[in-house]
């Protein structure tokens, strides 16, 4: 937990800045609507347009107070099927399962692309093409197709999440597998290491830092994929289902609350990847090297302990 705290203060500063900017924009957006409401004689517990700007039933932008109340309404009771916690958990499950599926597919493609130029040439354009198809169009088609084979509920959403998450994983892992220094590959050759040993002892470990970077990108992609899939197909649970419902009910405040919750869920899931990364790559800790996963050919400085 202590590792989170260095991030926490700058994060809160940004939140305060956004709030400070949000306030005047909210007034600007709502005052004309409030004026119109007053002109038409709507029953409002306020007298001036400025006062009413924070109390509209369906505001253009909800006031912080309205958002706060909205959160209170939508968060509790915790186990209610219409509250955010359960629905967020379902979406999180779809996202994580989607990411794991994407990892399997991504690894398969990445190994193929590193092992064979022909495989890369034949498949890469199609992999790119698969990502340009609008997910909102392909999601219902996939659900119909999967439904044909009895795959229903949260699994089709996970598959759709995997569909857009496998791309960054494929590219990231392929780059990671290609990252070892040519000299390191020569070294394995002088040991007469076979292909499998070269992957196991050199290419896979070298790709781990790239893998986690790819996972962070893929996690946000998978979350969007899961939510879009929930919106564009028949869903009984999930953030996307809540968005679709409240959109039909024109509940602007609820829409904002759900949107912010899904953003928070995204932060949480990416933080989870970051935590796993720290756990599984102990050699990169203590500020050893900041961003570059590739080993420097020679350390820039003469080490910390002298030679």
């Amino acid at each position: 937990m202590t590792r989170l705290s260095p991030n926490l203060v700058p994060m809160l500063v940004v939140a305060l800045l956004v709030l400070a900017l949000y306030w005047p924009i909210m007034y600007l957006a709502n005052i004309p609507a409030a004026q119109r409401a007053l002109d038409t004689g709507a029953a409002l517990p306020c007298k001036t347009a400025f006062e009413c700007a924070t109390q509209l039933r369906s505001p253009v932008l909800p006031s912080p107070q309205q958002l706060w109340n909205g959160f209170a309404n939508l968060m509790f009771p915790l186990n209610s099927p219409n509250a955010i916690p359960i629905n967020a958990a379902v979406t999180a499950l779809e996202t994580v399962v989607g990411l794991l599926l994407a990892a399997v597919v991504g690894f398969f493609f990445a190994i193929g692309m590193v092992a064979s130029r022909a495989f890369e040439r034949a498949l890469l354009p199609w992999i790119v093409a698969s990502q340009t198809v609008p997910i909102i169009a392909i999601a219902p088609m996939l659900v119909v197709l999967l439904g044909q084979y009895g795959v229903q509920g949260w699994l089709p959403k996970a598959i759709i999440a995997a569909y857009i998450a496998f791309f960054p994983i494929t590219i990231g892992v392929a780059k990671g597998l290609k990252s070892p220094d040519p000299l390191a590959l020569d070294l394995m050759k002088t040991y007469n290491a076979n292909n499998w040993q070269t992957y196991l002892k050199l290419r896979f470990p070298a790709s781990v830092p790239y893998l986690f970077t790819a996972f962070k990108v893929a996690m946000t992609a998978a979350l969007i994929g899961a939510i879009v899939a929930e919106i564009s197909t028949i869903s009984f649970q999930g953030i996307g289902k809540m968005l679709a419902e409240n959109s039909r009910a024109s509940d602007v405040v609820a829409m904002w609350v759900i949107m912010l919750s899904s953003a928070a869920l995204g932060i949480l899931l990416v933080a989870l990847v970051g935590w796993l990364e720290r756990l599984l790559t102990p050699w990169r800790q203590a500020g050893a090297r900041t961003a570059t996963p590739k080993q420097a050919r020679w350390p820039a400085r003469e080490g910390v302990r002298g030679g």
Partner: protein
Amino acid sequence: MKANTASEPSAVGSNPGIVVSVQGVSMVFPNGTVALKNANLEVAPGEFISLIGPSGCGKTTLLRLLADLIQPSAGTICIGGKTPEEARKSRAYGYVFQAPTLMEWRTVLANVMLPLEVMNFPPAERRARAERMLALVGLEKFARHYPWQLSGGMQQRVSIARALAFDPQLLFMDEPFGALDEITRENLNLELLRLWRETGKTVIFVTHSIPEAVFLSTRIVVMTPRPGKIETVIPVDLPQPRTFETRETTRFFELATEVREALRKGHGYEVME
């Protein structure tokens, strides 16, 4: 790739007193560069051979040919009576690269164990050998450190320990100290000589530095560029064991001058010292 290598399979390498034999070896890269032209060299067991010359003289190419990392365009190479490929597959040599090429995710000890894992040594023996090798290069206290915690000189010592871990009789070293400062380099030179005396290995050592070559070698192979070729071979008769004072003797300077003049004769001017 290896067009003429198999033409005379048993004619050379039969001499038991020769551990490395290079006969008429040439290397032309696909882009037409003649990296090495008609090289001939014989190395006896226990020798310390330095290959010296400016960039582009083919010294690294020659070492890579010996190690079967590339194959010659012409000529025959024998390593202990075997072809380079057979020698590589029987793990006849250890190779130390210009950069330490340590695996950053492995501790120092685990890095030294890497070749032993690849070669399927029993786990207990891997550990014992790696610890012995680290002691040999004076780094036993750093076994649990990660490479980034070590200085460049220490990293290169780990890579030497790693090359010696499976006890090959031959050690190929490609400018292992080229990126180090002069003071570290002179210390490591002394240490390398001590290792060589203690282990009785045959060493083939590539360098840019005349003093380093003179200090370390039993023979110096002077190479010159365009096209890369062996200009001459200079025997070094400085007495063993060599010490820091060896560098200040008259004979040392005479030999250094001899090497320098051989390089100049072959137009290999741009030698660093």
